[in-house]
C-alpha cells in the first residue's frame, strides 16, 4: 500500500514537472494554437486517472462516447435541424428584426442550447437504466 502510494506520488511529481516545463515553453509562444490545446489536454490527465478509478468504467466510457457522438451530430447537423423550424411570422406590431428578415426561427437557439446542456443527463439516465436491466437480466 505504501509502495503503491509512493509510486503514484512519484508519477504525479513527474507529471507536474513536465506540466510546469510545458507551461514555461508556452510563455514564449503565448498565441492560441494547437500547442495550447495540447497543454489543456495534458492538464486533464488526472481527470482520466480519476475516471479510470471509477467502479463502472465501462458504463462511464460508453456514456462519454455517446456524449461525444451526440455533440458531433448536433453541431454538424444544426443547419438540417434548423430547416425543421418555420421562419418567424410578422405580427401586428410589424416588427422586422434579424429573425424576421433572414427567416431565423426564434426557438431554434433555445432548443439548441437546451439540447447541449441536457444531453449528458439524458445519456446518463439511459445508460443507467440499461445497465440496471442488464444486471437484473443476468441475475
Amino acid at each position, binding site marked *: 500500500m505504501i509502495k503503491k*502510494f509512493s509510486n*503514484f*506520488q512519484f508519477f*504525479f*511529481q513527474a507529471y*507536474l514537472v513536465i*506540466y*510546469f516545463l510545458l*507551461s514555461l515553453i*508556452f*510563455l514564449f509562444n*503565448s498565441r*492560441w494554437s494547437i500547442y*495550447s490545446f495540447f*497543454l*489543456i489536454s495534458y*492538464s486533464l490527465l*488526472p*481527470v482520466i486517472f*480519476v475516471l479510470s*478509478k471509477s467502479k*463502472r468504467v465501462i*458504463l*462511464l466510457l460508453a*456514456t462519454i462516447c455517446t*456524449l461525444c457522438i451526440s455533440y458531433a451530430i448536433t453541431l454538424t447537423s*444544426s443547419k438540417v435541424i434548423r430547416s425543421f423550424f*418555420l*421562419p*418567424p*411570422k*410578422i*405580427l*401586428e*406590431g*410589424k*416588427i*422586422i*428584426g*434579424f*429573425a*424576421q*428578415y*433572414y*427567416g*431565423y426561427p*426564434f426557438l431554434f*437557439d*433555445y432548443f*439548441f*442550447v437546451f439540447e*447541449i*446542456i*441536457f444531453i*449528458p*443527463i439524458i445519456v*446518463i*439516465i439511459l445508460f*443507467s437504466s440499461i445497465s440496471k436491466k442488464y444486471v437484473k437480466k443476468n441475475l
Partner: protein
Amino acid sequence: MGKGKGFLVLIFLLLLIYSIYNFLFSCKFFPRNTFDSQLLLFWDYTALHNLIPNKDILYPYGILFYYKNVSIIFSFIYVLLFPTLAILTLLTFKKIIKNKILIYLTFFSFIFFILKYTGIEVFNRYGILLGISVLLSFVYNKYLYVPRSYSFLFGCLIGFVLSIVTDIGLYILSLFLFFSFFIPIFNNRINTLKTSKYYIHLAFTVIFFLIGILTVLLPIVLFYMKLENLSTYVEHSKYLFDFQLYSKTPFLPSLRSTENIFNFVVIIFTVFVLSYKRIILKEKTTFITYIQISIIVSLFLLLQKSVIRSIDIQITFLAFILYMFLFLEIITFLKDRINTFLLYAYYLLALFILFSIMGLRSFNTTSIYFYKPLELSMLKGNIQSFLTHKQTICLSQNLDKYKDNKTYQNILMFINRNAQDKKLLIFDYLTDPIFYVLLNQKSPFYFEVFGSSPIYAQHQIVDELNKRNTDFVILNINMLRVKDNVPDYMRTYFLLKYITTSFVPVRKIGNYYILMRHRSKDFFESDFFKNDVDLQKYFLDIDLKLIPQSEGLYKSKYLSGSEVLVSGSLDAINQYLAKQEISENDVFLVVNSKEDTDKKSHFFTLETGDYLKTTVSFSACSKKNVCIVNLSRIPIFYKMRKIKRIYSEGALEDSFQLIRSKNKIFW
C-alpha cells in the same frame, strides 16, 4: 469576534475601500466611436442633466446604473455591491473547501479574474445573480421546506433588485421560482411531489414571496409617481415582449468565441459530473451541488440574453467558479494519494492555464484611468457636488474625442452655420445618439435603432418630429452592422417614409447625410440624390430577403377576399400597366412559382411613370407557397407614383398577380 470573522471583516473593508476609490477617482474612457459607447455616453449626459430615464433605462437596465454617478443613494448602493458579492463568494468557498490555503487561493484568484477579465461594473451587475445563487443554496441546503419568513425576505430582496436593476431582477425571480418548483428533484425527494403538503407549501412560498416583492416595490412606485412617469412605465411594460422580436440574433456564431467555448465546456463537464454523481453513484445533494445548479441555471438564462450582442466575455466569471469546482473534485479525489504540496502545485498550474493560455479576453473595452485632479477637488465641496464635477469631467474627456474628429466637426459646423439666430433641432436616424450630446439637445423617447423597430415607436417618433418641427435629419448609411444588417426600409419603413417625404438630402460628410426639411421637393428627384451613387444604392437596391416568403406562408389565406387587378405572366402584367394607371398604396405583387428550381432569389426591376427605377430582390418562393410583396413598402413608392413596368430576367415560368387589398394584416 473570532479570528475568522475578523479576517472576513478586514477583507470586506479592503474591498470596500478599493470599490469606493475606483468609483470616485476613475473615469471610464471609451477609445472607439462605437454605437454602444455612444449609448453609454448619452445616458451619462441625460443623467447629468436630470432628464427622466429614457426607455432603455426603464427597461431593462434599471435606475441604479443610470443614477449611480449623480445620486448619493445610488452611488452608495453601487459601491457596496462589489465587497458584498465578493464576501458572499468567499463564504461559499469557505463552506465548500476544507483547506484554508485553497480557500484563499481560490478567492483571490477569483478577485483577480474579476479585475482582469470582467471589470467591477459588469461584476456588480451580473454578480447579483451569483449572490442570490449563494443565498438560495444556503437556504435550500438547510431546509427541505423553506420557511415562509425566508420566502418573504427573498421576495423583498428580489423586489429590491427588480426595482433598481430590472433585467437582473427578472433573472433572479426566475431562479427563485425554478428552485421552488424543482427542489424535490434535486434533493431526491420526488415522492413529495405526490403529497398535498408539497403543493400547499409551494403555494405559501409563492404568496409570501409576492408579498415581499410588493412590499419593496412600493417605494419605487412612489419614485416613478414623483417623476410623473409611472403611467409611461406601466404602459411600456406591455411592450416588453417586443424586445425579443426586434433584437433576436443567432446564437450559434457566437459559440465560436473562446469565451463561449470556455463557458459551454465548463457547463457540460459540470452537468456531466453532477448527473454521474447523482444518478449513477447516488450521492446526496450537498451545498456545492446547489451552487453548481444555480450557476448553470444563471448561465443558461444569461446566454439567452445574448440577443443583440453576445455577452460571453461578461459572464465568464460564473464559468470560472464552475471551473475551479471541477478541479476541486479532482483534488478531493487525489488528496489521499499525494501530499498537499503537490496538490497546491497542481491547483496553481490549473489557474495558470486559465489565466495565460485559454486566451480569454477582457471586457474592459473601456480604459479606466485614475484622474489625479479629482482627488484634490474632493476636498473642496460635498460628495454630491464632487459626483457632479467628476461626471462632468469624465463626460467632457470622452466628448473631446468626438469634437476632435473631422467628420463630427464638419457636421457640427454645418448645423451651427445654418442656425443663425435660432437653435436648430436635429434628429439622428437611430445610430449616433452622440449628436444630441454634442448639440445639447433632447432626444425623442425612442432614439436608438432596436427599440424604434415597432410600428408604435415609429409613430411616436414621427409625432415628436412634427411637434418639434425638426430641422435636420442626420442619416448614417454605414451602420448596417449595428442594425444586424437589417436595412432601414425593412426595420423602420414608416419612419423612413416620413423622412423621405418631408426632407431632402443637402450635404454629405463622410458616411453621414444631412437631410433638410422641405415639404415640396421630391427626395428621389432632387439633384443631390441623382448625383450620389451611394445614396441611390441605399434607397433603390432593395432586398426584401425572406419577408415575401414569410408573408405568403402565413397570410396567403387573407388574399382570398382581395380584388385581383390582373394575373398571368409578366407580359400580361405590363400590358395591363400600360393601359391602366396604378398609383395607390394598397397594391401587392403576388408571385407564384410554377416549379421548384435551384433559384435562390427573385430579381425584379420596377420602373415608375417619372422614369425612376428600383431593383427588388427577395428569397425565392417554392411551388407550395406564394410570395407577397407590398409595393408601398418599396422606398420609391413611399410617395404615390405610377407603376409603369415590371421586368425580370429569370421569371419566365412564374405566374403573377397584382392585387389590391386594404387588409392591415400584411406587412
